[in-house]
């Protein structure tokens, strides 16, 4: 494969300059990464651990979504299907089959990726807003399936899911133990996404985002690249959903509903499309808002809508994108 040499045919600035660093992290990103790891280490002592775990699950979900929208330019409006179904499968695996947490999480991820194969195969036949509408419609189909299917428990969901013992002997029942598992899964996912983006494969993804016909003319089967990116994203969304289910011990229709697909879009948009740390910050904003403004009831929806409008009209780079722009660094 001569992908590295071929890609240089695209003018610099389109694909972005490659800076040396560890796993594709450049200087400023490394500093931010260290800050993030420190924050992950102290967060459970300063904040309620379950809240931080919820935040990390959504941050991982948003990272998965950002991989598609930020780096391939594919707008999926149905990511709740993979997130929610990953949760259901992990819940079923842990409760009915009695699998250990790590196996349940892997099961959730595999199911997400498997659904990604089918949905991606259908959806990448159309582009742009059609892609968004198709993913949305397929996700709605999954929602109706979950309402009726026996194993999801319909309106009740799957309840009282045990967290189990990690590798069969480390009990996850305490919130702190669970927190470290969630933190490790998040960091692996986060660094993994970054690694994918900075691989030769990731360069082709970004080329597709910038100019798909041109990438095709350079000899890349863009549909194959889009499909693989889609599957990766769906698998990671499934992992995020699986982890969330284990944290809360419950899998419900909320996680497959369309509003969840909308929320992950909002998180990524607020944080900054196509930034590495954006999904984390965006998830923090959205989850924090839901937590602290919960007594406002339906006004939370109005505020979320307002943030959508404000982001689109006034700051399309998102929080991290604006900060990066201010200090002239890529975050």
């Amino acid at each position: 494969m001569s992908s590295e040499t071929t890609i240089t045919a695209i003018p610099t600035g389109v694909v972005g300059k490659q800076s040396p660093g560890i796993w594709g992290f450049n200087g400023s990103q490394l500093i931010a990464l260290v800050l993030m790891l420190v924050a992950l280490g102290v967060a459970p002592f300063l904040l309620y651990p379950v809240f931080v775990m919820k935040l990390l699950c959504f941050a991982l979900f948003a990272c998965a979504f950002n991989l598609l929208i930020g780096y391939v330019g594919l707008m999926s409006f149905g990511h709740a299907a993979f997130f929610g179904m990953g949760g259901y499968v992990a819940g079923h695996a842990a409760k009915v089959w009695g699998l250990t947490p790590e196996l349940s999480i892997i099961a959730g991820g595999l199911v997400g990726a498997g659904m990604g194969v089918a949905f991606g195969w259908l959806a990448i036949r159309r582009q742009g807003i059609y892609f968004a509408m198709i993913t949305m419609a397929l996700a709605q189909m999954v929602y109706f399936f979950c309402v009726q299917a026996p194993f999801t428990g319909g309106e009740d969901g799957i309840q009282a899911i045990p967290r189990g013992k990690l590798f069969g002997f480390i009990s996850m029942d305490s919130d702190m133990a669970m927190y470290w598992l969630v933190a490790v899964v998040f960091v692996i996912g986060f660094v993994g996404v970054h690694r994918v983006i900075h691989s030769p494969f990731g360069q082709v993804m970004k080329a597709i985002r910038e100019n798909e016909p041109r990438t095709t003319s350079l000899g890349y089967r863009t549909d194959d690249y889009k499909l693989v990116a889609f599957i990766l994203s769906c698998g990671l969304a499934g992992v995020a959903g699986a982890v969330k289910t284990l944290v809360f011990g419950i899998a419900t229709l909320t996680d497959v509903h369309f509003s969840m697909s909308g929320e992950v879009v909002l998180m990524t948009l607020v944080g900054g499309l196509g930034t590495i740390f954006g999904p984390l910050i965006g998830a923090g904003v959205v989850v924090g808002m839901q937590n602290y403004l919960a007594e406002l009831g339906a006004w939370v929806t109005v505020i979320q809508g307002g943030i959508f409008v404000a982001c689109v009209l006034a700051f399309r780079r998102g929080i991290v994108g604006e900060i990066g722009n201010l200090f002239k660094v890529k975050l």
Partner: protein
Amino acid sequence: MLETIEGLIGVPAPLLFGQLLLGLINGAFYAMLSLGLAVIFGLLNIINFTHGAQFMMGAFVAWMLLAWAGLGYWWAMLLSPLIVGFSGIILEKVFISRLYKLDHLYGLLLTLGLGLIIEGVFRNEFGSSGLPYRIPAELSGAWDLGFMFMPIYRGWVVVAALFFCIATWLIIEKTRLGAYLRAATERAELVQAFGINVPRMITLTYGAGVALAAVAGVLAAPIYSVNPQMGSNLIIVVFAVVVIGGMGSILGSIVTGFGLGIVEGLTKVFWPEASATVIFVIMAIVLLARPAGLFGKA
């Protein structure tokens, strides 16, 4: 003859015709909403995610006119589209018009946000449970058609929806205004060069598409209870309808809308569990066979 039908398909005839009528009514709403989406998309190049909220607003304005101003169904039929259409014009002027030079994606996100705001405000004001809206006296009652009882209002919905769809089609295909519209859909700069005020036409088109959603909302008010979620539940199905039909042709969206409504109704008779998903399955099959949609241009 009824016995032969029952013998052939093994389903009581009143059930079959009842579900067919329900399917036609759902199809009427699919057709009107997807038509509005197609008209807006043709000229503005955005998918109007606010469409469901505007459908809901149409029903709520009808309810408000009755509850607060004492104006009945026929006044609502006239005033609700005007009011909601005007609100659409304001949205286009203030928000949407700023995005035409950007990626389509931003239009989608903006209208999604606007839809959330509208829905949230209505939910705060009126709660999530539905409000009743009575069928107007002239249209209440039912006809005995021999093979089934048909509530007059349901028949009226189908007829009215057909009328609005065909009227829209005639305006677009047969009038001078429609010719401008079609021309601007193809090449907006060229039409502007001929001295036609394209930005104003875009604004009015958006208003008209929204007004069509509001008409559908008024028609729906006596059938479904008037509630803030009534639009968002419908609009995802309408998106699937749009994908199936393709947004290339006006007549195509009308035919697809009614056709899928009927298919959905028939599924309720023969395989009730699948009725919620049948349209999405059809969408998947159409994507495999004709990715551009049944009436779409590749």
